[in-house]
């Protein structure tokens, strides 16, 4: 009741504040008039009665104020007027306001955006129940992680006691036919317990059953919500329906929830049991079940730690049991690696993300320093104003409240802009994000990160805004008033100089990082891939369908049909106008083709049987080297004469030939690539080295064979087409040419080589762009800081400069005086920055290619750039100092 009246009265007074003020004034005046009338009634004259009333009752204005300001609404009105005053202040000092708000916006926005992007990958728990219990298992091969075989998985799953459930998973990319165009889908072949390991059940239908994960078992799939919506428009009757994949009818048994995020393969849209053949697993090692190509994950039993699981698996790896066979290449004798799923998926991107996070924290630090600097400069200018207001009777609390209001208004302005920057930044980050960055779908503006960045900048802004005011209002008003007219150096000059030094130092750290990454990128782009990337279009075709199966009656018949299809497709492609050369290959350089699938042991005649090289095996059509522009070093290329009936021919890469046959002619030597029970390949030529997985990695050992002479026909080949004009424009015509041969074969990737090249460099480009952007921001903020301090100092030293000029100092002298002052600060900042950057850049070492983190030209270039920008920032205040007219300044005192 009473609270309600408080509110209604207050609101009424707020809305009708003028009428309320009038009423209060009326009541007070009435009171005084009554008092005067009472005095007159006692027989006093009007004048005497008035005097008596004033003596007895005090100042009428004070009473009126007292009455008027009663109630909570009066505080609201004060805040309102504070805000109006603050807004006026900010508007009248537009330069200060714009620079401060932009500084805040950049600091808050950039750090929020980066943290939002990094958080789901590095810090946020994965979207599975008890996600910290999900582990991945690798074998350790030459110190690196490598995949396991199904045989090993089976042994681990049966013998280990640490895991509730374990699963294998491998990429599965079936071609879907029956639609308008054949299409390749992305999926995973998994164990029946795959979804149990992740802890997510299908939203519709059911999970796999162990009886479905056996060789020759039923063909079933679980599909993602995404695929369900796209293919079946969310039809709930989809269960039990067939879907044609690689020529077989698969039955849909389940649909995953919309929220399901498969962090092991974010593009996966369907899952099927892997159905390995385990009948001969103890005897026959030449089966897919013994290939080291499977990833393994498992869910720990409750209470079991990662260390215990590691020890458990290490124990199993050390002690083979007779009932579990282990071929030489799957002996597990190098031990096993158990990693948490969270760390596992972040493994590849962690250094880059941490570097970016570090960079953005530097930006935030620079922004904070800049805000402190600006606030100090501002309060320096306002000492006089505070003194005047204190002298006019403003209480200390009132002045401080006014300052807090101003700081908060500025913070709100910066925060709003910062939120905009954060939203735009997150969008840009997702757009820029390199392929393979996990959990991109989970990236949204993180409100906690925003609150943190906003909170810390606001706190710093308010504190630095208020501390000088405490100072001013505590001291005697008199000297402050005098000081404001005398314009001598202020007390915060030293602090502000230290802040500028800090800013320059922080900026240098960031710029060194950006410089190193830039130099490293230049180096990388300067690397010769070993072939000509210009005007090169690539199309990957994946054959699918039962016509390519080998019937038991005629082994090899299906393979021949597959070879014929590719031959005919190539002929059709070569007829497309605008094409200079066309060929195909089983393994395309600088693509995301899994290169380990195409890595084989090469074994030369007369080699020690134990030795062998791992080489990339390229099965190519005639004209491949010419179409790619791979230089022929000696001998000849693969050509039309290398048919199934001719002697098997092979090309070696230059490095392989040189290391295998130093000082000899490799032509005519014989080797096996893969199985030893096949005829020897005879070396007919040597070609230049090619970069396969990335420009940054040297893996030059390669052997090229004719697709007609391989022991199996590759089902997926990439066409490489050298065009006369724009390569991308020819893609539709070439697709149609391929489909004119068989319209059921999907073209799974069509991209120019330049695009593929950009993709392989994407992670480096991503980090580089961010460092460059942050570096520019840091540079600008540092320049603003230097300019601000110097401009302030010139204003403060006007008198001194005037005296100097009067005593005969030339403009040049004065210019040098101010410039030297600014450059001394810069030099000191650079010195401090160099020390800090020596530590900080070491963290970048893993991201650099071809240069050391101490790369001289990057360091010198950055220092020169920073010095030049600082010089520019010093120039304006210095030039302004030379315009000081001694007669005017001296007379003004």
């Amino acid at each position, binding site marked *: *009741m*009473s609270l309600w*009246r*408080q509110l209604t*009265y207050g609101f009424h007074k707020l809305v009708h504040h003028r009428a309320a003020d009038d*009423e*209060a004034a*009326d*009541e*007070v005046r*009435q*009171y*005084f*008039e*009554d*008092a005067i*009338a*009472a005095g007159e009634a006692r027989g006093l004259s009007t004048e005497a009665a008035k005097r008596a009333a004033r003596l*007895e*009752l*005090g100042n009428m204005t*004070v*009473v009126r104020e*007292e*009455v008027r300001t*009663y*109630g909570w609404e009066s505080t609201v009105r004060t805040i309102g007027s504070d805000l109006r005053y603050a807004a006026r202040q900010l508007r009248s000092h537009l330069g200060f306001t714009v620079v401060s708000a932009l500084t805040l916006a950049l600091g808050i926005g950039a750090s929020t955006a980066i943290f939002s992007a990094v958080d789901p990958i590095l810090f946020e728990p994965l979207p599975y129940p008890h996600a910290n219990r999900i582990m991945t298992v690798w074998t350790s091969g030459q110190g690196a992680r490598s995949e396991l075989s199904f045989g090993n998985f089976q042994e681990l799953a049966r013998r280990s006691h640490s895991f509730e459930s374990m699963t294998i998973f491998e990429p599965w990319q079936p071609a879907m036919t029956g639609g308008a165009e054949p299409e390749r889908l992305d999926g995973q072949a998994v164990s029946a317990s795959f979804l149990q390991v992740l802890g997510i059940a299908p939203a519709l239908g059911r999970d796999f059953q162990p009886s479905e994960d056996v060789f020759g078992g039923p063909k079933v799939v679980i599909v993602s919500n995404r695929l369900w919506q796209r293919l079946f428009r969310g039809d709930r009757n989809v269960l039990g329906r067939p879907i044609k994949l690689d020529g077989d009818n698969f039955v849909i048994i389940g649909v995953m929830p919309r929220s399901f995020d498969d962090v092991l393969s974010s593009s996966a849209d369907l899952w099927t049991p892997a159905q390995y053949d385990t009948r001969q697993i103890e005897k026959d090692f030449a089966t897919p079940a013994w290939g080291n190509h499977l990833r393994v994950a498992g869910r720990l039993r409750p209470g079991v730690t990662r260390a215990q699981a590691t020890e458990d698996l290490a124990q199993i790896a050390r002690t083979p049991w007779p009932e579990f066979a282990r071929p030489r290449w799957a002996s597990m004798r190098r031990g096993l690696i158990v990693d948490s799923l969270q760390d596992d998926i972040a493994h590849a991107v962690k250094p880059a993300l941490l570097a970016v996070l570090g960079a953005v924290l530097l930006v935030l630090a620079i922004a904070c320093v800049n805000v402190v600097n600006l606030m100090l400069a501002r309060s320096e200018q306002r000492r006089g104003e505070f003194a005047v207001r204190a002298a006019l009777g403003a209480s200390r609390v009132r002045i401080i409240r006014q300052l807090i209001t101003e700081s908060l208004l500025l913070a709100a302005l910066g925060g709003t802009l910062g939120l905009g920057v954060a939203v735009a930044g997150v969008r840009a980050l997702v757009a820029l994000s390199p392929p393979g960055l996990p959990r991109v779908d989970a990236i949204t503006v993180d409100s906690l990160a925003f609150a943190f960045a906003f909170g810390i900048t606001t706190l710093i802004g308010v504190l630095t805004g208020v501390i000088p005011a405490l100072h001013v209002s505590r001291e005697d008003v008199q000297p402050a008033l005098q000081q404001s007219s005398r314009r001598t150096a202020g007390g915060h000059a030293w602090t502000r100089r230290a802040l500028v030094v800090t800013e320059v130092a922080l900026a240098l750290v960031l710029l060194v990082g950006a410089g190193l990454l830039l130099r490293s990128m230049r180096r990388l782009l300067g690397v010769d891939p070993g072939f000509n990337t210009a005007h090169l279009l690539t199309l990957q075709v994946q054959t699918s369908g039962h016509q390519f199966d080998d019937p038991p009656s005629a082994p090899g018949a299906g393979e021949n049909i597959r070879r014929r299809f590719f031959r005919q497709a190539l002929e059709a492609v070569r007829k497309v106008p605008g094409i200079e050369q066309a060929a195909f290959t089983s393994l395309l350089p600088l693509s995301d083709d899994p290169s380990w699938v195409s890595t084989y042991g090469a074994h030369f005649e007369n080699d020690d049987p134990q030795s062998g090289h791992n080489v990339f095996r390229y099965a190519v059509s005639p004209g491949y080297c010419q179409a790619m522009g791979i230089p022929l070093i000696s001998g000849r290329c693969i050509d039309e004469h290398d048919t199934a009936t001719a002697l098997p021919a092979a090309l070696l890469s230059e490095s392989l030939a040189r290391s295998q046959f130093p000082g000899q002619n490799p032509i005519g030597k014989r080797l096996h690539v893969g199985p030893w029970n096949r005829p020897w390949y005879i070396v007919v030529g040597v070609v230049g080295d090619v970069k396969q997985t990335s420009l940054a990695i040297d893996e030059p050992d390669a052997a090229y064979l004719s697709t007609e002479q391989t022991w199996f026909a590759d089902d997926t080949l990439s066409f490489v087409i050298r065009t006369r004009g724009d390569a991308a424009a020819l893609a539709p015509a070439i697709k149609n040419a391929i489909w004119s041969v068989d319209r059921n074969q999907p073209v799974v990737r069509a991209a120019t080589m330049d695009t593929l090249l950009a993709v392989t460099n994407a992670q480096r480009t991503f980090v580089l762009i961010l460092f460059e952007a942050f570096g520019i921001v840091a540079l600008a903020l540092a320049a603003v800081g230097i300019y601000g301090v110097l401009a302030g100092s010139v204003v403060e030293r006007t008198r001194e400069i005037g005296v100097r000029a009067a005593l005969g100092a030339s403009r040049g002298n004065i210019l040098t005086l101010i410039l030297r002052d600014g450059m001394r600060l810069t030099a000191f900042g650079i010195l401090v920055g160099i020390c800090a950057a020596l530590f900080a850049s070491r963290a970048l070492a893993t991201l650099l290619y071809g240069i050391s983190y101490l790369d001289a030209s990057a360091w010198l270039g950055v220092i020169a750039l920073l010095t030049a920008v600082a010089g520019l920032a010093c120039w304006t205040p210095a030039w302004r100092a030379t315009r000081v007219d001694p007669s005017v300044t001296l007379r003004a005192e």
Partner: protein
Amino acid sequence: MSDSNTDVIQGTLDMLILKTLSLEPLHGFGIARRVEQISRDVFKVNPGSLLTALQRLERAGWLDSEWRQTENARRAKFYRLTRSGKKQLEIETADWTRRSSAIARLLRQEG
């Protein structure tokens, strides 16, 4: 006279106002004058304190106010006790009596 303390005892102004208004509705100056008269000039009422106290009591729902003609034909804001104001006066009176008699007992014992 000027040396003796005429301040209203801390916390009793509300009660004095309520008591004064329980006799008849009055305007601000009338209340002050009545308090001074009845207390025989022991208490002098500060106009700022009185007028803000009136606002406070009105918001608490113990008083109503309206602008009316005074006996000498001027407009003034008159305050009137409400029913809950009467109840409040009883509570405060009882409370005051209890406390003042306790203080009186203590002082007597001292003497």
